[in-house]
């Protein structure tokens, strides 16, 4: 066994040294491959002429070269010598070798095919995983679309009675003073009706976003109006509102849509300051952009929630639709602007909206 081991090393050494290029026509190995038949060397000669260097490399002038063929395509050669037995290589041996070569070629081809198959299986698995991921996304998307459509239908059905409720309560409130005993109750009905309307607006915008209707106007009254909606709640909770409207010029934006965004952000801030706090709102102009910043001292947003804040139907609130920030982002983007949220847990949050001072090219 020890001898065989040594022989193996020696054979490997020889095989290594035998390496020839397929382009080298002088080698007997390439001749056997090209002619697709066994060639026998006896006493250093064969029926074809060849480079004699191989005799030195093998240390033998009796050997046979048999091509390994798979469906007549060569995949290698078998070199067999008689170095141990010294028995001459006969026609019978060649036939046996050819059978062995055919079997060996098939085995090698199978091994290659198996390797190829394993690679393909891996590729298929990767493709399948990718397909499944995109399929899941598609299902998610169609779920949102179906939900959006249903939301639109329901929202339209609900809006008309809601407008009547809100409108008539407003009428009743006008006929009373804040000191009347019914006044706070009427106010609850009105505010809740308006809150429902706000939810509907978000659902509707989600289902079918509309193009902004640009009108050149001031932003300050709109923000003040949005703040006034929550004024009583701010006071009750001990939230101080600090405003700084450094930008005082009219510029083009869709009043309803931007109001929706501002109200949404202010409401989020309000909800994050259960124990009171400060709400800062400022406007300024910078490089042709109007910058609106809403900053609060509320509970802040964790990094994992912050990364998902603009996803549709993502909400950390029990009663949230999860559409507020998503719709806000879409509205701001349709104005050609951008919206960013910076926050850390327990450190408040800051929303920055950038809107172009002038309309740039887009239709509206």
């Amino acid at each position, binding site marked *: 066994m020890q001898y065989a081991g040594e022989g193996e090393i020696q054979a490997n050494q020889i095989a290594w040294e035998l390496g020839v290029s397929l382009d080298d026509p002088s080698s007997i190995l390439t001749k056997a491959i090209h002619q697709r038949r066994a060639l026998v060397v006896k006493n250093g000669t064969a029926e074809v002429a060849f480079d004699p260097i191989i005799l030195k490399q093998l240390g033998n002038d009796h050997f046979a070269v048999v091509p390994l063929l798979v469906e007549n395509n060569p995949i290698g050669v078998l070199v067999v010598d008689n170095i141990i037995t010294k028995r001459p290589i006969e026609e019978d041996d060649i036939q046996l070798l050819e059978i062995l070569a055919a079997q060996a070629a098939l085995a090698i081809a199978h091994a290659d095919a198996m390797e190829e198959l394993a690679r393909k299986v891996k590729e298929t698995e990767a493709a399948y995983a990718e397909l499944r991921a995109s399929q899941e996304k598609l299902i998610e998307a169609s779920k949102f679309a179906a939900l959006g459509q249903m939301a639109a239908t329901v929202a*339209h059905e609900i809006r008309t009675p809601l*407008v009547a409720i809100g*409108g008539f309560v*407003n009428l009743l409130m006008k006929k009373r003073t804040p000191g009347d005993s019914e006044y706070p109750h009427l106010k609850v009905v009105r505010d809740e009706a308006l809150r429902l309307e706000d939810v509907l607006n978000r659902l509707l915008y989600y289902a079918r976003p509309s*193009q902004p209707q640009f009108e050149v106007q001031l932003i300050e009254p709109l923000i003040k109006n949005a703040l006034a909606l929550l004024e009583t709640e701010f006071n009750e909770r001990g939230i101080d509102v600090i405003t700084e409207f450094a930008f005082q010029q009219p510029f083009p934006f869709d009043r*309803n849509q931007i109001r929706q965004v501002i109200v949404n952000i202010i409401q989020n801030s309000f909800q994050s300051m259960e124990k009171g706090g400060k709400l800062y709102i400022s406007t300024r102009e910078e490089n042709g952009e109007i910058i609106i910043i809403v900053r609060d001292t509320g509970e802040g947003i964790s990094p994992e929630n912050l990364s998902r804040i603009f996803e549709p139907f993502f909400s950390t609130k029990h009663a949230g639709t999860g559409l507020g920030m998503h719709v806000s982002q879409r509205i701001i983007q349709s104005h050609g602007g951008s919206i960013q949220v910076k926050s850390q847990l327990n450190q408040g949050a800051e929303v920055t909206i950038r809107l172009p001072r002038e309309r740039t090219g887009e239709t509206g």
Partner: protein
Amino acid sequence: MKKILIIEDETHLRQLYQSEFTDEGYKVILAKNGFEGISLCKRENPDLVVVDIRMPGMDGLDTISQILEHDRSRPVIIHSAYPHYQDNFMSWNADAFVVKSGDLSILKEKVNSFLQPASSG
């Protein structure tokens, strides 16, 4: 006193608008569908028209086209529960588009901006 015509198929909303716009100092004429709206428009010659879109029979967009055929100078405000009609070019005939809300302040502001009434509510 300025006259406004409000075309709205919902009875309760008609009552609400009547009350609110009378308080604002306008004479309010009400129509419950497009056909009635067109004939009242011809007969009463209002200073401004507020029209709903989704109405049985003739919708608000057709109603607007016919009203404008009669007189293009009269301001028309669409007042609809369906914000996406803003994307419909037929709605661009109107001078303004207001989404229905229980808070009528935006609609009032729009009406006032066109008519600037002498008295205010």
